[in-house]
């Protein structure tokens, strides 16, 4: 593959390309293809090329790191100084961030130029990228279909070769589900591995940033850059820096792969079921050993999530009040009027629905029945994984119940949309690392995603399995014709 960040970093190291040249190539593709895909909200060629030139100077002076000069796109949920940072919302449509998120600081320190800010579901609430104030993103494999969400712009940019890699965030599946629907590789780390500082909050106990790229190897290299302790996030974990690429070449002989009964039930049908079975067969050939496990409470994860995430969101999004930053209604009578109109006009309907659910489940008389009950279920769901990991090293299943669906197909019924994340949500509730990688195509030529789930802090083991699978299969090398 000629467009992995691994390959691009080699080109730069050998002097066969400059960062400015690479960035110009990608900016050209963005200019040509973004009108059809709508993957980017903001592109600023001058800023990108300035950063690229600085990376080239750094390399010339012998100060380059492994990825210096390799460009990357950032989800518009990350505050980046001097860049419009909208979070896909009218509420922040005028917000030029005065500071950098920790993730952005890390990529800047690595010398990786920013190709632009990618489109996303408004405040990361959605599974199809149709809730964005900036319009839906289209799937590069079929532009009548959604790319998944909420990191749909990042997914479409990587799948369409508008960027070699991008950042995403995952609260209930927002990296893994769009990665599956667009045929790329995406990873959500263990909760606390990547700092949430400067990443606009949705549900703070679940939100986690991660890389989206072509290959598991690229994801490992990017996680090496993104991860690390940051005192400004109170849930950032104080752990020694690790090299997530260290185990990529380990053989899979003896690796125990847990197959949860609940992931292979009645909901899994057709081409997705076949592709996942074929992936299991290939991993067996590589020496892995399938083990049956059970996650009996995982069926409750969607219900528990739609209490916990909206509750945290209603609290987090109370900051958008038209006073300190962002949109303010032009016409108001008094302070309450200012708040209510600003929020009515600034938020889209999915965000309003979730804030209202959150306000309700936290309100007087309902807290125990909803919020507390959901937190208890969260423990049961997490305990299932603890039990399962006593019998296996990595858990495997589908990422999403279906391949990419048509635009507008699920917008009328929020509940149907929520079920797109049925296989991914439990991982966020437990705080475990998970990833999606391509494992085949359906009859209509749409990519299918394979989900791997690791034990806490076992990203390197999970990436090892994913990398070995990718060395033996070719699905991740397929690209859409654009």
């Amino acid at each position: 593959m000629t467009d992995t960040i691994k390959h691009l970093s080699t080109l730069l190291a050998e002097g066969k390309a400059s960062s400015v040249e690479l960035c110009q190539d990608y900016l050209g593709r963005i200019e040509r293809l973004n009108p059809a895909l709508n993957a980017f909200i903001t592109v600023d060629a001058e800023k990108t090329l300035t950063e690229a030139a600085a990376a080239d100077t750094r390399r010339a002076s012998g100060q380059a790191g492994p990825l210096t000069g390799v460009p990357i796109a950032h989800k518009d949920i990350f505050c980046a100084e001097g860049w419009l940072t909208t979070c896909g919302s009218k509420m922040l449509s005028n917000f030029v961030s005065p500071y950098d998120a920790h993730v952005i600081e890390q990529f800047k320190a690595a010398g990786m130029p920013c190709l632009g800010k990618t489109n996303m579901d408004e405040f990361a609430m959605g599974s199809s990228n149709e809730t964005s104030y900036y319009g839906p993103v289209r799937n590069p494999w079929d532009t009548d279909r959604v790319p998944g969400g909420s990191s749909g712009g990042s997914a479409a940019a990587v799948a369409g070769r508008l960027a070699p890699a991008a950042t995403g965030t995952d609260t209930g599946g927002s990296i893994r589900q769009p990665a599956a629907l667009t045929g790329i590789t995406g990873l959500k780390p263990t909760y606390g591995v990547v700092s949430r500082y400067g990443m606009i909050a949705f549900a703070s106990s679940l939100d986690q940033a991660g890389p989206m790229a072509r290959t598991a190897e690229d994801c490992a290299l990017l996680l090496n850059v993104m991860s690390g302790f940051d005192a400004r996030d109170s849930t950032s974990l104080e752990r020694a820096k690790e090299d997530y690429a260290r185990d990529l070449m380990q053989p899979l002989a003896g690796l125990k792969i847990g197959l949860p009964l609940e992931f292979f039930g009645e909901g899994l049908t057709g081409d997705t079921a076949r592709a996942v079975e074929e992936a299991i067969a290939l991993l067996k050939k590589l020496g892995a050993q399938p083990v049956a496990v059970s996650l009996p409470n995982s069926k409750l994860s969607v219900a528990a999530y739609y209490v916990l995430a909206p509750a945290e969101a209603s609290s987090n999004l109370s900051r958008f009040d038209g006073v300190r930053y962002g949109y303010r209604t032009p016409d108001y009578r008094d302070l309450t009027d200012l708040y209510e109109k600003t929020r009515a006009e600034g938020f889209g309907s999915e965000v309003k629905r979730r804030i209202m659910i959150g306000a309700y489940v936290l309100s007087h008389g309902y807290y125990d029945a909803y919020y507390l009950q959901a937190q208890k279920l969260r423990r049961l769901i997490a305990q299932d994984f603890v039990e399962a990991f006593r019998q296996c090293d990595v858990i495997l299943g589908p990422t999403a119940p279906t391949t990419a669906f048509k635009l507008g197909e699920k917008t009328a019924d929020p509940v149907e949309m929520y079920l797109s994340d049925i296989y991914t949500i439990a991982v966020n509730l437990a705080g475990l690392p998970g990833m999606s990688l391509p494992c085949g195509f359906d009859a209509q030529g749409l990519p299918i995603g394979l989900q791997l789930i690791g034990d806490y802090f076992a990203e390197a083991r999970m990436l090892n399995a994913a990398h070995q699978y990718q060395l033996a299969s070719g699905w991740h090398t397929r690209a859409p014709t654009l």
Partner: protein
Amino acid sequence: MSLSLQDVQRIAHLARIRVDETEAAGYQAQLNGIFGLIEEMQAVDTTGILPMSHAQDLSQRLRADVISEPDRRVAFQAVAPQVENGLYLVPKVIE
């Protein structure tokens, strides 16, 4: 459980989101659908289960009580809707 139109208006006010009558009917149907999904939680017996608020059982980190942030008021207020003399302006709250 089923939310009435009045419930929807009460929740909207709690959330400080203006919802007019036509919108309220739409939200009522959608929120009831979502609560239908959530209700399946109630069938589970969770007696004796400790609530889990967080993925990692962490205690709050403390730091020394020293000034660590530089003064960036001008930059932060540059993105505010309305400021004057370094103050954020809102409609009068006290007569």
